[in-house]
Every structure is written in C-alpha cells, then in structure tokens.
C-alpha cells in the first residue's frame, strides 16, 4: 500500500480513541505523511464521504440505527476495517447493562419526547459487519495503534496481543495486588498491551481492554469471593467494559 486512502470515524463513544490518534503529537506529521486521510470529521471539514477507502478506522459502539447505517456504509466503501477501542471491539461501557429495559431508561431521562429517539442496545462492530482487525483499549494505546497501522502499511495484519495484563505486570516487577493487597484486580482476565498501567500505579486493573481469549472466570470469581467480595459486585465489575458481559451475566443469574 503506498499512501492508502484512509477514513477515521466515530460512532457512539467518548472520542477517546480518535483523541489518542490526535495525541500522537511527535508522530502526527509522520502519520499524515504516510496516510492519505480522506474522511475524518473530527479533524477536518473537507471530507470526501463517498470515496473508496483502503482503510477505515472506526471508533465507538453502535447505539442507534443511524450508527448502524453509517457503519454499513463505511464497510461497503472500505477494503480493510479496523475497530479501535473497547466500545468498537466489545461494546464498551454502554453495553454494561445489556439486560436493563432501555426504553424505560430513555423515558426516565427524557420524558415523553424520549420515545421517538433513535436508540438501540449497544453492540460491537463485529456484531454487525466483518471486522478485519480489532485494537482494544479504553482508550487504545498509542504504540499499539501505530504498530498496527505500520503493519497494515507493510501488508500484514499485526500480531494480536494474547497475553494477560498480569504478565506485563510481572515483567515490570509491580507488586501483585491480588496476592498482596487483596484488591479485585482484573489483571489475570484482561488482555495485555497497556504495560499493566493500573497495577503500576498500585491500582487494580479494571479490565478496560477487554478479556483474554481463555479467561478463567470461574476461578477468578471463586478467588474474589474467598477474598470477601459479593457475587453481584464481582459480576458488575466484570461487566464494566462489557467484554465479559455474557459470562458475567451468567454469573449473576447463577445466584438468583
């Protein structure tokens, strides 16, 4: 790919991942030299919203029919679609309470005029279209994003991280919060790549990058319960960034 046509899009989210792209200050000028950014509404007002794209980078979850249609349009015009951020990859915090009554919630907040609002339960991009590459993180890590793009420019899909936060935590010799302070650290369940940012600050991982492939939920839950945490709270905690929502949902059902 020589200077591919690129679009950067945000569905519903906090714009944190697009901000991380803009935060690549040192390398921002390199990025715009390597990529022909044709459609990036957050950063430019001269956007070609119809051209074919080699690469579409999409942030945010799908929370409305409008999002869904936009995503389908993006997919149709792009060769490679990359989901960036936990919302796009897993549904993010908006998917936390998949089981609550959404229309009721909307009515609670907006009153009657809420009824006509275009709103659907949160979904990750892969639930709607094919996704070629997922880069997780809330927000994504700058290095991982740039190396992902470099790999794509080189013609390869980047090597997906598969190791948990714990491994990175130990590589940096941080004190373990599970064995030492008995926090609810989600490090063993969470996909690494952040260099164990939170444990490095003596704060338990909250799982913002979503789960590792073979997360041993049962064992971690048993451990947390042994350490005195309630099942409901554990289930909620696991569900925060939505990656574990399906299993966490089962966990809370077990109880009832």
């Amino acid at each position: 790919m020589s200077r591919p046509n690129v679009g950067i899009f945000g569905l519903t989210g906090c714009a944190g991942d697009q901000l991380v792209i803009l935060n690549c200050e040192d390398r921002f000028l390199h990025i715009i030299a390597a990529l022909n950014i044709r459609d990036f509404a957050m950063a430019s007002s001269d956007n070609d919203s119809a051209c074919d794209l080699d690469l579409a980078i999409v942030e945010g979850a799908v929370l409305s029919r409008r999002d869904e249609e936009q995503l389908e349009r993006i997919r149709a015009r792009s060769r490679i679609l990359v989901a960036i951020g936990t919302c796009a990859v897993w549904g993010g915090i908006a998917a936390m309470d998949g089981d609550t009554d959404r229309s009721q919630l909307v009515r609670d907040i907006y009153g009657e005029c809420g009824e006509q609002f275009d709103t659907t339960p949160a979904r990750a991009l892969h639930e709607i279209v094919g996704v070629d590459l997922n880069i997780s993180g809330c927000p994504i890590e700058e290095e991982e994003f740039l190396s992902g793009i470099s790999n794509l420019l080189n013609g390869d899909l980047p090597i997906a991280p598969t190791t948990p936060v714990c491994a990175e935590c130990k590589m940096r010799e941080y004190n373990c919060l599970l064995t030492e302070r008995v926090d609810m650290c989600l490090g063993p369940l969470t996909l690494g790549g952040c260099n164990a940012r939170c444990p490095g600050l003596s704060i338990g991982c909250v799982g913002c990058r979503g789960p590792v492939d073979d997360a041993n939920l049962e064992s971690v839950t048993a451990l947390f319960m042994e350490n005195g945490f309630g099942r409901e709270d554990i289930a909620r905690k696991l569900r925060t960034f939505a990656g574990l929502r399906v299993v966490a949902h089962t966990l809370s059902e077990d109880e009832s």
Partner: protein
Amino acid sequence: MKILKLEKGKLDLFASVVQQFGEVHAPTEHEGKFSFKRLNSWSEARLDYNRTVLPPRKYFLPPRETLFKYREATGYVPATEDLEKRVVLFGVHACDIHALNILDEVFGKGYLDPYYLTRRKNITIIGIDCTPDEHCFCRSMRADFAETGFDLFLKDIGDHYLTFVGTARGDDMVIATGPLFSEVTHSDIVEYKRRSSQKCDTFKLDLEIRDLPEIFELEYQADIWEELGEKCLSCGNCSMVCPTCYCYDVADEVKLGSHDGDRVRLWDSCLFATHALVAGGENFRKTRSSRIKFRFYHKQRGFVAEYGRPSCVGCGRCIEACPVGINIVGVINRLRGVEHASTD
C-alpha cells in the same frame, strides 16, 4: 578455591571500590517487595532480602530485547548496543546462581546464544548468604549452595563475610580493595560449619527429587492435572518470575511508513493459550490443564532427561506469585502421595 574474609562494617567501602567493575545493582525494597535495581547510593541496598520479584535472569535475558535491526540496504544487522554494559550484581542468592548455571546449559550449549553469553560475561556476580523463609525449598532442589557461577560469594559468619573467590575477575576485585580482606582463621571455619548446618535445619518446605521423573510418568494421567487446570488462571505469573523459565517469542516490528524494522525477542510462557498453537488452528496444548502439567513436567522431568537435573531451583517465587495459590511443592508431594506438614 581462594577464600578470604571481609569485615561486615567495610562492606560499603568494598561496594564503592567494586563500582570500577561496572554499574552496581542490588536488591532494593518497594512496599515490602524487593527487586534488583541500579543503586543511587549504597544505603538503598537491602542485602537481607528474601527474594526479588524478578530473578537476575532479567539482566541476561531481558523481558524485551532487540536482536536485529532490519534495513532495506543492509539486511538484518545484529543489535549490540546494550550488550557491552558492565554491571555488578551485588547480593545474588545461591538458588539464583544455580538458575543462571541452568540457563548457561540452555544458552551456552549446542547453538550458542551470543546475546545471553555476552551479557553473562559482562555481568559480575557477587553472591550472598540468605535465610530461608516459608516458600524456600532450594535445599530439596540441591541449589542451596553454589560452587560455580559467581565471581565472589559472601557467607555470613557473624562480624565477617567469608569470601569465596570464584573467578579471576573476582580475584581482581579482591586485589583492588587490598587491605579490606584478611586471612581466614580456624575459628572462622568452625563458625562457618556451625552456621551451615544450622541453615539446613531452618527449611520449612521439603520434597524428594529422587525418581521424580518416574513419578511424573506414572502420574501423567492423574486427576490432579484437571483440578489444577480448573484453578490456574493462565496469567503466566509463575513463569515470568521463575529464574529458570526461558521461553520466548520473536516478532518483527516495522517502523511507520517504511519497511525498516527491528526483530525483538519477548518473554513468553507455556501457560499462554497460544504457546503451542500452529497453523490451521491445531493447538497441541489447548486445555489449561495440559499447559500447567507441561510446565511442571518440563521442569521436573523433561529437563532431567536433557540436562541431568530438574530446572527448578526451589526459590519459591512461583509459590508467592500465584494468585490462586498453586504451590509446586504441594503438587509434587501430592503426586508422590506424601503429605508435608507445611505445604498446603
């Protein structure tokens, strides 16, 4: 072997002389845990530590290192930048020295790993005595005393350290400090022997390694592996902190907007699901139980077949690091069918 003694009160003086042999790194404390770090001042050194979170392995096989730089014009060029750095590791325990000797077998036999070996030659090791705690079982693993693999080894005999000189460089260090060292007397020897046998009695963990390979073969299908598989988190903590685990991954990293890049090597673990995954999705150790079994099997049985001894030195790190309390001594004793009072 040349043996001298060093007054304890002069240790800081000795350390200041040793600086000329390289950057001094020693165990330092952080919220009750220890790690080898570059010292800003000698007072940071905590020679009374029990164990560091990461073993000295991190100096020889770093968590991440660049092996080659690839440039379109020159091809793969070996990266040599950090290799020549001279470091003095002050205060390495016997088990960790044993572990380095084990890594020497892996990286220094057959195909020689020049990165590891170059570091091994540039890093000076000053060993020190220790007191076993509740997780130590180096005695069972025959790793409680080191005969080789260090430049100097300091053994506590009260007011003095008996100093065993292991290499010519160790001798140079002794000579550079001149009058700090004195001759060993008969009463020093008596004291050394007294302390040595006393130390043997302080171990709280014990296990028998004779015929362990046979036991492993016999118990290859035992239920315990399934049980452990249900408990294990595949977090890799045990292998990250192990002084003799050396699995690594290699990846090419390309620079944005070019075809140039680096080939890096990164720590890996046999507990990760992708460790034995090959093309076509075939995974030779798909289940967690098969992976944790493999770790024990490889250390306690596979390594014996290849190198004549288990690759565990009994440092206790994996016991301390496991969030769900999987305890290697407990596992082995259970395989053997013996209960030991102090294992769980």
